[in-house]
Each structure stands twice: as C-alpha cells, then as structure tokens.
C-alpha cells in the first residue's frame, strides 16, 4: 500500500493553475523523483504536501491519515521532513544546535518539567544527543559540529539542512533539489546518502531534481511535470524516452 497518496491535487494563484490534477502514489522505501522545466510547479507541489499552501482541489493521504488540512507544524509530527531549495537553517546557531532542533517533534516533556530539568528531561536530552551524533556520523559533519551555520560554505549548509531533516527520524523525506549548488564530489556523496536513507534508515524519499544522472542513478520512478500538469510517470528510462517530456524540455 502506498505510504503517500496524492489524489487530483490542484492549486491556483489568481488565474494561474500552478498545479493541476496531479495524482500519484509513493510506495514505502521507494525513491521517487519529480522532474520538469522551471515553472513546472514542482516546488509548489512540495509546498502543498508540506502544507505551506492550501490546495484548491484534491487530497493528500500519508500513512492512512488525511493530512490535507493539518497545520504545517504537524507535518513533521506526522513523519514527513523536508529540505528547501534555498536552504532554511538557523544561521546564528551551531550545526549541533540546528540538528538538535530537528529533534523537537520527539519531545514529550512539558514546560514545568523543562523548567525543573527533571531526570525525564535529562534522559530525553541525552537520547536526542545520541540520535544527532548518529546523523553527524552518517553525513560526516563531525568537524563542523560547533561551527556557526552562517559561516559555512553552501555545500556544507545544504548537508546540515539534510541532517536536520534526518534528525527528525521521518518516514518520508522531501528533498528539494538536493544536488543544486553541490560540486561533483558532493553530488556523488549525495547519491550514496539517498540510497542509504532507504536501505539503512528505512525512509521513503521524494526529490525534485534537475541533474538527470543523479535521477537515473537513484530513482525507482520518475514523475515529469510541465505547466502544472503531469507529463509522464514511470521508470527513469521510460520517462526519458517519452516524446512529451523531450518536447517540454526543448520547448517544442
């Protein structure tokens, strides 16, 4: 059974149909890529799934639960984490603190217990720290642990943002252009990490990506979009051979 089902989702801004009649299902432990030319509505679709935008039509069901109308801060509690195309981190905090905030959804202690710093809070904090250290090891961020995010190079910040999403231990992770701005070596690392997220961390991955070599290397299925609509859905090979997809990219 699909872990995420998107049914007939559409959204308009004024008269513009930014996303129109999109339906697909993503299986557990699948790596699912969304491709398309600029302005195709890929990020808008991500923003609808993660509840920044209110869809005008359709529904989104995650893990058997309708999440079409939940508030944005409940998205991560439901088990969906995401990264952003233009990196959203807490710039004046260290890498460690950024990852620790990724653990926020797992906290159970209330304000009173927090203030008194009871043993329960202590244990919770220790468990968080252990999980965060696992993520730091996984992404090889050790040498940046105590560095302020604002001073880090773009490629590293991108990985820190991925780390914060992983620290939340989501079942589904949404990656918006994971390879943009990365150099060749960093992109190769990204391929391995995405595969490990599925193989070792049991996650389902949906990513928006322009780099077709990365898409072909890791994705099980690809959804191609253009002008808010679905062009093709299938294996990377099938989608690449689709005449409509080629036409959309070449402006035909």
């Amino acid at each position, binding site marked *: 059974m699909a872990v995420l089902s998107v049914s007939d989702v559409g959204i308009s801004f004024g008269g513009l149909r930014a996303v129109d009649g999109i339906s697909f299902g993503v299986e557990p432990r699948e790596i699912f890529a969304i491709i398309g030319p600029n302005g195709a509505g890929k990020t808008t679709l991500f923003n609808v799934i*993660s509840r*920044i935008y209110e869809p005008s039509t359709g529904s989104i069901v995650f893990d058997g639960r309708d999440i079409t109308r939940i*508030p*944005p*801060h*409940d*998205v*991560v*509690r439901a088990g969906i*984490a*995401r990264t*952003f195309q233009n990196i*959203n*981190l*807490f*710039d*004046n*905090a260290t890498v460690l603190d950024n990852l620790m*905030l*990724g653990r*926020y*959804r797992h*906290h159970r*202690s209330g*304000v009173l217990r*927090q*203030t008194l*710093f009871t043993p329960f809070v202590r244990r919770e904090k220790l468990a968080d720290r252990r999980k965060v250290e696992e993520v730091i090891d996984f992404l090889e961020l050790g040498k940046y642990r105590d560095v302020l995010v604002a001073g880090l190079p773009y490629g590293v910040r991108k990985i820190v943002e991925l780390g*914060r999403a992983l620290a*939340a231990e989501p079942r589904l992770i949404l990656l918006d252009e994971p390879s943009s701005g990365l150099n060749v070596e960093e992109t190769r690392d990204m391929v391995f990490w995405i595969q490990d997220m599925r193989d070792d961390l049991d996650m389902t991955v949906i990513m928006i990506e322009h780099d077709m070599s990365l898409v072909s290397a890791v994705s099980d299925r690809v959804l191609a979009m253009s002008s808010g609509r679905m062009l093709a859905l299938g294996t990377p090979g099938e989608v690449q051979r689709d005449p409509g997809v080629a036409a959309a990219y070449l402006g035909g």
Partner: protein
Amino acid sequence: MDPLIVFLQAVVSGISIGCIYALVALGFVLIYKATEVVNFAQGELMMVGAFFAYTLVDLGGVPFVPGVLLALLATAAFGVILNHLLLRPLIGSPAFTIVLATVAVSTLLRAVVAMIPGWGVETHRLSNPLAGQVVPIGKLVVSAEHLMVIAVTVVLVGALYLFFSLARVGVALQATSQNQLAAGYSGIDIRRMFGLIWGISAAVAALAGVLLAPAAFVHVNMGYIGLKAFPAAVLGGFGSLPGAVVGGLIIGVVEELAGLYAPEGVKNVAAYVVLLAVLMVRPQGLFGISKRVRV
C-alpha cells in the same frame, strides 16, 4: 559636597532609570526578534501593568509582592489576548500595516484607561514597602528603591537568559526568531510562540511599570517612556537582548549626567544625541549584526 560623590550619585540613579528603559527596550526587542513587528504599544502595556498593580495593591488591598505578581500575570494574559485579537488576523499583511496597528492600539489603550472609573487621567501613587528608605554605601547614599530596581532587573535578565538558552520553549522561541519557515517544519507551532512572546513581553513591560511607579507615579501617559526606551533598543542593535540592556543603561546614565553638568533642557534630548552619535559610527547599533542582503 565632594564632586566625586555627586558624580557617583548621579551614575547610580542613572543606572536605576536606565534599568527601566532597558526593561521596556527588552519588550520591544523580544517581540521584534520573534515576529519582526515593532510594537509601538509597548509603553502602553507598561502603563496597563502599572494600573493593574495599583488596582490590586492600593484599591484591592492585596499585599505588595503577591499583588505585583498577579499584576504581571494579568498583563501577560492581556498581551496574549491583544496578540490574538488584533495581530494574529494581520499575519501576512505588510509590516507597515501591522506596525500602524500597534500605534492604533497604543492610542486606544490610553483612551480606554482614561475612561475607566478609578483610573482616569489622575496621577496615582503605587504604595511601596521601600518608600523613603535609604542605604548608605560608603559616602554614597542610595535610595532603597533604586537598589530594588537594579536588583530586580539583574534577576529578570538572568532568568530570561536561562529561559532562552535552556528551556525547550525558550529554544523554540529563538529558533522562531531566526527562521520561521525552518522552525515550523521542525514541528514548532509558530502561532503559539507569537502568543507566548507577547505574554512574556507584556509581563516584562508591567514589571518596568511597577518599578517606574515610585519615581513617576501611575498615570495614563506614563507609557511615553517608550520614546526613551526605543532609542535604547536601537542603540543596542534592535535585534539584541544584551544590546537592549546596555542601550538602556547608557541612555539612563547619560541623561542623569547631562542633568547634572549640562545646561537646562539638554537632559531631555541627551538620549537622541547619543543615539545619533552612535548610529553615525556604527549604523547597526552597538550589538547589531550588519546584514548584507543579496540582490
């Protein structure tokens, strides 16, 4: 009298009034950091807090300390309600609209307070257990009220520091102030955080009102002290909590010294002169971080 003693006396009372500027400035900065709104009703929240304390302690007969604590709680609740009724519906509007709404709130609060029987436009005295007592420190004679203002400010700033660095809610507030989008997707309920910050900020303002009352009485226009606290916040860099405190202290001390040594009238403009001088050298304020916006 020894000129050094005169100087030190002025410095102590400057620090004391500076603490009150600092508390009001902290209120400005807290709300601005978390919500990117400059709340021009901050001085009026302070006034409302002082009236709550006056009503409980002097009209209601509640002992001073519990009365003041109740007044702080009541003002915090008032801040939360204000945010809920007036500012939450404006989320997503241009910043200018929201700032003007706070200006409207400040005018409205002054008008409403003036209409309430027992409050009105008269000057009230908030009774205070330390009234008239003095503490000699060497050759200095310091009023107990001044010492209380300084002590309470130190304790409050310390408590706020611990809250923001240790408590989970405090950390969540910090995260919200740095990046709302990222905070939301880490599972932080931003609307709840906005309510909370308005509550804290209103309580801090109320405390400033109670501390100011012995020196300036409780009056419908006492909120105009915000006009002095605002430069204090700007001086400190506006986004910085320690900056607000240091800015408040500098303005308080400069004012007192100007009153002592400079010609009549300079005292009233001293805050703005200092502000202009500092901004010419450091446009981002003393503790501000200069941000370059990439275009």
